């Protein structure tokens, strides 16, 4: 740490300690800055925006005991910002002051000052900063603007997830990949640093929202900065300082359309991070209402596809999940008046019996409940809603098994006709391309992450293959529509995955070893007292895991549908987990998805204790390792080197607003 920074921190600590006796104090200033938190005025600037991109100015003031904050002004570069500053008491002599939907066309680093007045006239003041990024032409000629933006986010997809998908679906022989993945064909590559505003390890909310807002946010939060409101306020989930989304900005400035496609519940963190503003990524009722009330109006949302039908059904309908509250998990939304006014959006209401599918249809959306109806949408469809499951959609492995006439696992028996991600991608592109002014489309391969959490190797590999098939559709679209920029990346790595080698034995032998109990003839017993963690080790680790030369080149047989005939081939590829939870491992495909790693595969008696903490932790966790980004199409050459995840937003906007090769 820089000596000057240390000094600044101790000074700040001293001033906070002294303030309790003397004067009101500013305890938070949004947008976040190093200048405010540690008196560091130098780059990197934590918060950066585009010219005219809207964001809220907010501060939290600790008043003297029993005193009230009566007013506040915000100053940018020492000039008072015009507009209404709302003062709200948030309990404990704390006050939140906010000025909504600020923007400025002028570029450069700006100081932000808040001056709050306590009854009696005492001032509390603090300073921070932010940057309005100047987008300038890198070349004088040969430059064109990107018209269409496609973000493909493989949730949790690190480098090894990609490699594993390639080894299975394309094969390796004599040291060379027999064929590249679609994403391998993209000409530009970068590495992204993924930390969130409050942790080195991000979750999917700030990990995705950064691509839509250009800014870091706290874990669990999407499209907002953190604040200090408490549960005593009914609107506490919905009053956070907002940052304008890419989709909203480009709809407002250029008339572009927005599309959101996911294999998860559509309220899940990644899809919501492109269309709504929420402190709580779990507030599904409010998030899905906002898709229609705000995103369809302000961001020109024209395509929304995925799971999560439960949020769209009146609460009295079977399968509904709509919540009758603004504070519970799954909450509905009601905005404070200053946000509704400042941003010009609907204030929302608690309406558990809302028929949101009908409301989407009234707004002109064609509703498709399954793959058949999706495939049959008229060619002139301009708005498309697809809800293919009440919760997350089933994973590629289980959808493909059903299509091949196999067993119905997961929720496939309830929803037997769910589309594959490439089929959804096709239709999303068809509908969005109707907008002559272009579009922003986010496509998420969501269960790469979910199945990696569950350490279900075969299922996340097939998810990555399904995701790559969607990428292929987008690259073909970009070839036919050259002013399209395609970005393939993730939000974070999940599970610390890597490829450790291949099985030394045939599948038949693996089955034998996995069904015979260990030396003590009892399934699932860990012989800790003997110093041996499990008696399945000799059978399923020493006797199976082939490393280096012994790994050779596992071979999978790919069917006409693009997926392997079976993942349980002889001498199959083996995966290890570094961000792991407790699990039993027998290396075989699990018959059922979403079974706890601590409860399946016990007959093989090979127990691998996990490193993830928490009582009963049996899921793997996100890691902080950098993630790969691949780019193709108009402006792709802007993406190279090692970047902050927020840089992606500004490079995309460079391609859209200024142009690139």
């Amino acid at each position, binding site marked *: 740490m820089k000596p000057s920074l240390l000094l600044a921190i101790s000074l700040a600590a001293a001033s906070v300690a002294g303030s309790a006796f003397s004067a009101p104090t500013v305890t938070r200033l949004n947008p976040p800055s190093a200048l405010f938190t540690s008196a560091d005025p130098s780059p990197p600037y934590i918060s950066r925006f585009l010219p005219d991109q809207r964001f809220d100015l907010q501060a939290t003031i600790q008043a003297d005991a029993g005193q009230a904050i009566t007013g506040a002004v915000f100053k940018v570069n020492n000039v008072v910002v015009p507009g209404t500053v709302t003062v709200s008491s948030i309990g404990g002599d704390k006050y939140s002051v906010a000025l909504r939907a600020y923007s400025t066309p002028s570029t450069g680093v700006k100081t932000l000052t808040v001056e709050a007045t306590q009854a009696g006239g005492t001032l509390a003041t603090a300073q921070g900063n932010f940057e309005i990024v100047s987008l300038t032409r890198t070349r004088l000629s040969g430059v064109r603007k990107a018209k269409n933006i496609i973000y493909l986010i493989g949730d949790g997809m690190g480098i090894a997830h990609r490699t594993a998908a390639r080894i299975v679906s394309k094969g390796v022989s004599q040291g060379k990949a027999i064929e590249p993945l679609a994403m391998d064909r993209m000409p530009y590559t970068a590495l992204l640093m993924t930390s969130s505003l409050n942790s080195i390890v991000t979750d999917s909310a700030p990990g995705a929202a950064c691509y839509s807002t250009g800014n870091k946010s706290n874990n669990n939060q999407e499209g907002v900065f953190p604040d200090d409101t408490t*549960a005593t306020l009914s609107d506490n989930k919905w009053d956070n300082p907002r940052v304008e989304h890419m989709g909203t900005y480009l709809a407002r400035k250029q008339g572009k359309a927005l599309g959101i496609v996911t294999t998860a519940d559509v309220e899940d963190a990644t899809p919501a991070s492109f269309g709504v503003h929420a402190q709580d990524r779990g507030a599904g009722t409010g998030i899905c209402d906002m898709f229609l009330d705000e995103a369809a109006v302000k961001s020109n949302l024209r395509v929304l596809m995925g799971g999560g039908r439960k949020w769209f059904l009146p609460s009295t309908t*079977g399968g509904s999940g709509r919540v009758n509250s603004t504070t519970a998990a799954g909450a509905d939304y009601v905005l404070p008046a200053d946000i509704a006014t400042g941003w010009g959006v609907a204030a929302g209401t608690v309406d558990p019996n809302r028929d949101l599918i009908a409301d989407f249809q009234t707004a002109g959306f064609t509703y498709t409940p399954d793959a058949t109806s999706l495939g049959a949408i008229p060619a002139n469809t301009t708005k498309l809603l697809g809800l293919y499951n009440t*919760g997350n959609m089933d994973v590629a492995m289980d959808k493909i098994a059903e299509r091949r006439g196999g067993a119905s696992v997961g929720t496939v028996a309830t929803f037997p*006709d769910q589309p594959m991600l490439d089929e959804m991608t096709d239709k999303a592109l068809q509908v969005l391309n109707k907008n002559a002014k272009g579009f922003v489309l986010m496509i998420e391969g969501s269960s790469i992450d979910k199945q990696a*959490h569950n350490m279900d190797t075969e299922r996340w590999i097939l998810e990555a293959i399904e995701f790559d098939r969607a990428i292929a559709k987008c690259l073909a679209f970009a070839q036919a529509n050259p002013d399209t920029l395609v970005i393939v990346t993730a939000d974070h790595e999940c599970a610390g995955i890597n490829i450790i080698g291949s099985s030394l034995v045939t599948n038949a032998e693996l089955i034998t070893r996995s069904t015979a109990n260990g030396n003590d003839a009892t399934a699932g017993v860990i012989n800790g007292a003997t110093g041996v963690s499990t008696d399945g080790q000799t059978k399923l680790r020493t006797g199976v895991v082939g490393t280096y030369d012994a790994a050779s080149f596992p071979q999978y047989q790919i069917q006409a549908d693009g997926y392997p005939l079976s993942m349980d081939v002889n001498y199959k590829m083996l995966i290890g987990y570094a961000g792991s939870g407790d699990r039993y491992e027998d290396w075989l495909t699990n018959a059922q998805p979403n079974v706890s790693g601590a409860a399946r595969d016990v007959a093989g008696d090979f127990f691998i204790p996990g490193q993830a903490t928490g009582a*009963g932790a049996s899921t793997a966790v996100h890691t902080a390792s950098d993630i790969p980004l691949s780019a193709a199409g108009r402006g792709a050459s802007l993406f190279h080197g090692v970047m902050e995840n927020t840089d992606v937003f500004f490079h995309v906007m460079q391609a859209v607003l200024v142009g690139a090769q």
Partner: protein
Amino acid sequence: MTSKNSLPILLSLCAIGSVAMMVLSRPADSVTSLESTAPQAVTASSPAPTSSLRNLADDYALLAFEELYQLPAGPRGLEFTLKTQSLKGRKVRMGGFMVRHFHEDAGVFLFTGVPAAHNQAEYILADSLPTSLVHVMLPQIPGRAPSWRPQRITVFGTLELGSHQELDGRLSHVRLIAEHVADSQTLERTEVRRPLALQRDRMASGVRTLFRSSQGDNPPTNNLTNTAPSSLR
């Protein structure tokens, strides 16, 4: 519970809990005198003289998870089968698995026809749980929540239908007001409760819940940071 100072407290809690378990390890239907705060939780029927529930099986209609809703689902919501509707308010038995899941209501566990896990701390209510999810309501005992077990269990109870918002925000559509819980193979009674302090094997919200609390959420009333319930002292 991870700081050094709290370790002796935790150990003594465990010791107290172990004693309490011996006292409380009775058939589930004999703990009716304890306070019930959940409106759905009903007091159990009269205790059976034997621990095996085989002789009770005839009194409870067998209802399979795959019989709950019409399959496949239509374009909108899920619809109960005629059989489910006919059993509304009646005594049924269902065989399935406890979801490996931390529930914020100590009187509830999620019950499915196939083994399933849900990490609510990570995903909140966006889940991949089977659509035929059943909420099993137990007589609520302060500080004691059902402990997850991987084995197949059979729940005997009264079938309740219709949407109801639970404490954790999730809507329940099918509730089983439990009277007995048994191991499915032996039909011997199973104790599905243990003091929270001893629940090493339940998936906890842990740090993430604390984090969310700091962001303004109501702290859950039954997470691992709670002190031991007074009934154990």
